């Protein structure tokens, strides 16, 4: 238990928190950019055009079937060579998380839009609402209720997936933890346990409220 003192060394906790901030920032940017991409993707998925349908199907299936780490490798190593597009590690991570988050969110948007019965559209038109009014006042409020709980869950998954960024060399919370462990290799050899323990707890503290929020929303809107 002596080794727990590693956490009290000057700079250790502040640095871990800074690392956590990088993780949160990375996840927040990815989620924020995934929303517009997901909305457009979802709308494209509802179109009847066969070419667009096939393209969207392949996009979604490819993103879903490849491990996220493999996607990160493809973006980080492949894109740089293919188009001389020199993405740094953070850029490659955001790029992949947005492609992935956008595809997943797009599928949720598609599901939410398609779950609205045709009679809702017909009734709105009959009442004299325009296309745009129907969408913003009738369809969207209902779609959001079906969409939001699953989207919050997706955000949790994105936060967890940002942990892979460390394997490309992004200095986020895990990498900071490794640096701290290496710096204290000799004075606190057993510090590994505590540093990884704290990182474990940090992820939980970030993700758990999100999961709870998703569950709360799901319950609240389930019976309406």
């Amino acid at each position, binding site marked *: 238990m002596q*080794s727990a003192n590693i956490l009290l060394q000057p700079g250790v906790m502040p640095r871990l928190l800074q690392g956590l901030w990088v993780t949160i920032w990375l996840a927040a940017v990815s989620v924020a950019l995934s929303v517009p991409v997901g909305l457009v993707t979802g709308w494209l998925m509802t179109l009847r055009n066969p070419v667009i349908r096939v393209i969207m199907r392949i996009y979604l299936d490819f993103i879903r*079937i*490849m*491990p*996220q*780490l*493999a996607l990160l*490798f*493809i973006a980080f*190593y*492949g894109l740089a*060579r*293919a188009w001389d597009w020199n993405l740094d590690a953070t850029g490659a991570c955001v790029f992949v998380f947005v492609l992935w988050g956008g595809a997943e969110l797009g599928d949720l948007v598609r599901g939410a839009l398609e779950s609205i019965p045709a009679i809702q559209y017909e009734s709105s038109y009959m009442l004299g609402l325009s296309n745009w009014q129907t969408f913003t006042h009738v369809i969207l409020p209902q779609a959001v209720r079906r969409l939001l709980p699953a989207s919050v869950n997706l955000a*949790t998954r994105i936060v*967890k*997936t940002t*942990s*892979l960024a*460390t*394997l490309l060399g992004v200095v986020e919370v*895990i990498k900071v933890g490794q640096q701290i*462990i290496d710096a204290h290799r000799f004075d606190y*050899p*057993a510090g*590994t*346990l*505590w*540093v*990884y*323990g704290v*990182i*474990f707890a940090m*992820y*939980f503290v970030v*993700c*758990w409220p999100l*999961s709870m929020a998703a569950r709360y929303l799901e319950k609240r809107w389930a019976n309406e």
Partner: protein
Amino acid sequence: MLDWAFVSRYAPFFVTGAEMTLFISVFGIALAILTGLVCAAIETARIPVLRQIVRVYIEVSRNTPLLVQLYFLYFGLPKLGFVWSAEMCAIIGLGFLGGSYMSEAMRAGLEAVPQIQRENAYMLGLSSRQTMLHVVIPQAISTSIPGVVANVIFLIKESSVVSAIALADVMYMAKDLIGMYYTTYEALFLLIVTYLIILLPISIIGTWLERRFDYAKR
């Protein structure tokens, strides 16, 4: 564009890598299913204390990334005297992560069986064990299978992370080739193809099962 001679020379590397991926996945998924069964049983039977422990486990396992779980198992726990091989850590990690997902899928299946089914079974004179075995579980299995298969695919994908604790799986081979020969395209091509060969059949079987059981319900 691709150097096919290189691809065919190093394809065996990826077969070895795929063997490691499958080895870790098969045992990890078996452990996950076992854990899931126990947890789902405890939650359905509403056993006090154990039930709270299961709840905590599920929340912790679902809300932390596999990579951190693996680092904790592989680098952290040895300091407490639990020294496991990398393979063992990977299997336990995958089982720890997957157990909660499997449990949720199975519990959803059990809860989807309407109460009236149980009541009718009791009314017909079946004991609670017979009701469970012959009425509830068969129906629960067909409802939870799509979720379980989805989790199987998810866990095989997640197993790509074990390359971080120096296990020579598919990911590791790709990284190795890029690092050694700068053959980015060939390595990434082999990486994609290997994962497609592993995951596509399971994904197709999953879709088929889902349709089949959907039909059975109608």
